[in-house]
């Protein structure tokens, strides 16, 4: 996946940067990129995109007029695909933003464009206590037969979502809700763009789940967080409005064992991903 996008100006000054995955070595990475940009000024890339390996990452770079463009991607990524994306980005920038950048003006709309091009992988984490229906929700989304027994998840189960839901790849992290696994939650939601907190809509469970909201806001403050009021078919269920009030989150109703909820749920997730991106941009 593309972990960072950088555009540097003539003096090696950063015109635009965006990181999709936090890394510990961020400061040194930026410094490295600036040095690299200076170095690149002395060689002629002839409009080609090249790359070099750096620890686990691979840095792709291209130059056009006075600008240097860089992607930090994974070594495992398909280099051709990333090079195509680089061409797309360079073209879009040179066509619509180069003049603005030269005049030191804001690059209105460039950020959206970058997301459109660079976001190839979205992590959605599903969090909630044991037996509330997280794994069932995952099966529903993937259009699989829905098991009716509770087979507790161990640790985390990671699955891709079908392409129809979004043009980005979505990986769902279905976390184990049993309390012994709570030591893993903070680690497992790291870098999630969307977190779905699932409750079984009983008062007791919803009250307990407030703790999860706090955990998520602490660990991934930039993520879009939504609530799910599951098991609406049961007589004890609180309304989604009530659940949402208690959690302090936009909350949606669900009966995860009922296939007719699938399309609605897909819409909700699609929107959450888009809103997540929009919110991440606000200063």
């Amino acid at each position, binding site marked *: *996946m593309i972990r960072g996008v950088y555009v540097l100006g003539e003096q090696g000054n950063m015109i635009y940067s965006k990181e999709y*995955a936090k890394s510990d070595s961020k400061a040194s990475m930026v410094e490295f990129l600036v040095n690299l940009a200076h170095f690149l000024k002395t060689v002629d890339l002839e409009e080609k995109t090249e790359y070099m*390996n750096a*620890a*686990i990452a691979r840095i792709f770079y291209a130059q056009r007029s006075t600008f240097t463009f860089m992607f930090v991607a994974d*070594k495992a990524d398909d280099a051709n695909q990333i090079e195509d994306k680089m061409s797309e980005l360079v073209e879009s920038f040179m066509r619509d933003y180069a003049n603005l950048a030269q005049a030191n003006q804001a690059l209105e709309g460039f950020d959206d464009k970058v997301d459109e091009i660079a976001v190839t*992988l979205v*992590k959605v984490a599903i969090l909630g206590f044991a037996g509330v229906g997280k794994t069932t929700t995952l099966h529903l989304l993937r259009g699989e037969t829905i098991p009716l027994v509770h087979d507790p998840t*161990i*640790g*985390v*189960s*990671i699955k891709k979502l079908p392409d129809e839901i979004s043009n980005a790849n979505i*990986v769902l*992290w279905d976390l*184990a809700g049993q309390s012994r*696994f709570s*030591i*893993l939650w903070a*680690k497992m939601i*790291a*870098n999630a763009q969307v977190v779905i907190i699932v409750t079984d809509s009983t008062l007791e469970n919803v009250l307990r789940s407030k703790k999860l909201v706090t955990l998520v806001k602490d660990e991934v403050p930039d993520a879009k967080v939504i609530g799910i009021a599951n098991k609406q078919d049961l007589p004890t269920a609180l309304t989604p409005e009530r659940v949402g009030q208690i959690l302090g989150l936009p909350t949606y109703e669900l009966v995860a064992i009922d296939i007719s909820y699938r399309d609605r749920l897909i819409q909700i997730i699609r929107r959450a991903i888009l809103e997540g991106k929009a919110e991440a941009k606000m200063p």
Partner: protein
Amino acid sequence: MGRHMPESTFIVQLDDFHGFVVKQRYPSSLTLNEKVLNLIYYEHQKEKKEEINYCEIEDMRIASYRSALYPGWMVCSVLKQDEDFEILRSNLTGSGRLILALITVDQESFSLEEILEKGSVLKDLSEEQNLAEVFITPSSALLLERMQAEGIEKAAKLSIWLRTQVQNDEIDLREAMAPLMNSGIVKVELVGKTSEMVFLVKDIFGYREPPVDSILKTREAIPSIAEKYEEFLAAFFSPPPPNKGYNPTLRVDDPNSPILEDREKISRILAEKLQYRVLISLREQPLTVADISENTALPESVVRKLLFALEADKVVIRFEEEDLWGLLTNPRIESFLPEYVLPILSKKLSEKEISSDAAQRHLELLMQTWGEAK
């Protein structure tokens, strides 16, 4: 030392996006499922402090190694039915350490099979590495500074001081002090019934020594480069005026003192396990990459990377024509008797800040540590 080849070994990384990724496995036919990886990881998270952990999962007896230096990585070995984990523990820890250090330097050239066949391990830290840990662990460097000023201090008081310094109420004094205790710089003991005291018994000093052994050996064994070698050293340690050269005896508050800024770098080089291997193999004499690879059991590609890093830190130099590498400076950390605590002790005693038992005990500890002809 007996070569031990576990039934199978695999390396896993928990990636924030892709989840558990098995990076390499031996033998390649080994199959693993998500649940097994999850449980190994979970067992490890539960046992917070251990580097190596043992668990039984789905009829498999698994030893797994992880290190705070490489978060998310694990090296796991499946043990045979008749193997005893406790007997293998130190070997598995050593090879786990080496494997993670290697794979994170250069994934492409890393071969798990090669490492397992050689049975290579990274030994426990040497004494100088233990000392170096102090300077690269910010909380212990901070505590050392405090102890240099206080000499002797109640553990409870030190703990409160540390909490306010780092603005964190959860920090555990013992954990923060571990590098200081492991290297024998401080001792913690109960004096009387209630008060636990921290005593400073050693102080340490990091510097670059001229590589004396290496230059002597070079004169004898590779005389063709001896002259050039001496010029390199002279340029670093005693360049013509007005340049000052490296002089570790300058006082620390002198702006020209190389010690403060360099101390951390020296510590890092000593503490970084692979660089350290290369360093100790070069302490004797200049060598080729192939020699170093042989001595350290590290692949040549890795040795080369490590040498470039050491060159940038002015630890090694290259003799281009001869294709040899030699030490330019020899990073050392040494300990010395902190005699400056004596006046502090008597002052604290006279002001009744400490009991005479505590002062007495401090003197005993200093004598035990430094008494025999050192």
